[in-house]
């Protein structure tokens, strides 16, 4: 399985054979998903000694995450899966963070915890988890919200992701990891497959596109793509 995620500041890729990790590549660069992802994929496959045709499954983080980077991961995974002719499995990216928080022991083995990542525009993507049989189980659908709107009772939960770094006043107990690791994402995907759970590969945007029904949308367009002089 090739697993990848671009929903956080990490551009992360892993190759997993179902039992162990064969290769892992990550770059921290929230603004350059397009540039880094394909070389990382190629590199990871090479170091695992595999050709794309050897893959049997691809897993991808479907977010939530900043849209542009998220789409790069999704289109990369979907098109590669289509090209090679293998299934593409979605994983809620926050679940991959939760998975690593549990596996690394950064959250207590029984208590509830949360994941909060940067949603930009002074908001976070947030979900709450509990731990059952050594694995995280999500208690709420991923939401996008202002940190101030996180309920008082939830603020003290151990919280993974960059949310606590950005809003230390709200999230009182920061824990690692900060960003998604494709290794953890692969583990979640493999477990989903084993349990017959299929998460689609639709992007979790959680927000509608900004669109003003005025002339300003056209002039924005021109600004971006007008002739260079």
């Amino acid at each position, binding site marked *: 399985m090739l697993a990848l995620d671009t929903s956080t500041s990490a551009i992360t890729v892993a190759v997993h054979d179902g039992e162990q990790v064969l290769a892992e590549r990550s770059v921290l660069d929230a603004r350059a998903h*397009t540039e880094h992802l394909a070389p990382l994929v*190629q590199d990871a496959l090479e170091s695992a000694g595999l050709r794309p045709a050897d893959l049997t499954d691809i897993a991808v983080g479907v977010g939530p995450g900043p849209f542009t980077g998220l789409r790069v991961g999704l289109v990369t995974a979907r098109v590669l899966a289509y*090209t090679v002719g293998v299934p593409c499995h979605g994983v809620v990216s926050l679940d991959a963070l939760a998975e690593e928080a549990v596996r690394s022991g950064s959250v207590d083995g029984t208590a509830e915890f949360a994941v909060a990542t940067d949603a930009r525009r002074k908001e976070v993507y947030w979900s709450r988890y509990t731990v059952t049989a050594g694995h995280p189980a999500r208690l709420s659908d991923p939401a996008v919200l202002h940190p101030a709107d996180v309920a008082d009772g939830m603020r003290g939960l151990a919280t993974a992701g960059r949310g606590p770094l950005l809003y230390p006043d709200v999230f009182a107990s920061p824990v690692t990891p900060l960003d998604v690791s494709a290794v953890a994402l692969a583990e979640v995907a493999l477990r989903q497959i084993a349990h017959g759970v299929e998460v689609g590969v639709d992007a979790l945007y959680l927000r509608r596109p900004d669109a003003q029904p005025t*002339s300003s*949308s056209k002039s924005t367009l*021109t600004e971006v793509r*007008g002739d*260079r002089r």
Partner: protein
Amino acid sequence: MADRPLVLGIETSCDETGVGIVRGETLLVDAIASSVDEHARFGGVVPEVASRAHLEAMIPTIERACTTAGVSLREVDAVAVTSGPGLAGALMVGVAAAKSLAVGLGVPLFGVNHLASHVAVDIVEHGPLPEPTMALLVSGGHSSLLLVPDVTNEISSLGSTIDDAAGEAFDKVARVLGLPFPGGPHIDRAAREGQVTIDFPRGLTTGRDLERHRFDFSFSGLKTAVARWVELRQRAGEPVPVADVAASFQEAVVDVLTRKAVAACRAEGVGHLQIGGGVAANSRLRALAQERCDAAGVELRVPRPGLCTDNGAMVAALGAQMVLRGRTPSDLGLSADSSMPVTEISA
């Protein structure tokens, strides 16, 4: 592969998801999915809406292209993609998709310039490009006069718009006249019922403007002049003669475009003019360009309208030329460059 490479091209610089397949200099298929209807109610392209649509349309469009052309992806010799200029987020979807294809198939990747592709597309329509060729590219995002000695390697910009693009002017004037978006085809149609009765301004065509901006265009003053003319009528409580305004506006645009294009051919001693971009579909532009090229002894080439607007075939056409001329493929680290200059043909 040597003399007839099979090249798949992807275009996502604006609101069209285009996938074209070319074998050598022969077009096999030009598949398009457009999100234009989703933008219509906003009166312009909304970048985030376009990017979301590209993501969803990508695989269905690739699939449709392959099925229609009767080729299997595995036969593809190279992948080409628009890497700029265009909407950043939209370009990235295409670039990432193209990279995945290149990695998955183990074939070279060519990131190419959108404007150069608009020129190269005529190769699959009318055969090899005369070298040099003059190209007038007029669309919703661009208005450029390009001197093209070698479409894979050397293009220089003689002039471009200093404000609105020609297609943008059509779209904005259409709104003033209460016509739907995109306005170009509606103005074209309305104009056929009207007469050129109003002498609207021709931007950058006289005196010092002409000296400083010999081959540049300006359509913003024209757009304002039309809006003011219409508003004065409306204030006076008089009906607006939509067909006549459309015809007069259109005449002003195509007069300047064709005059400068032919003048550029003369100045550079170039015997061939090609027109591309969405506005090349305009019937009056085609007619006046033909008339003026005939008078100047310039051969005019205009691809069919479907190949003038944004499409994947043009990217495949340029990609195939890159392969045929032995150009170096792009690195897998290729980025999308929203303001890629036309002098940069590949990335």
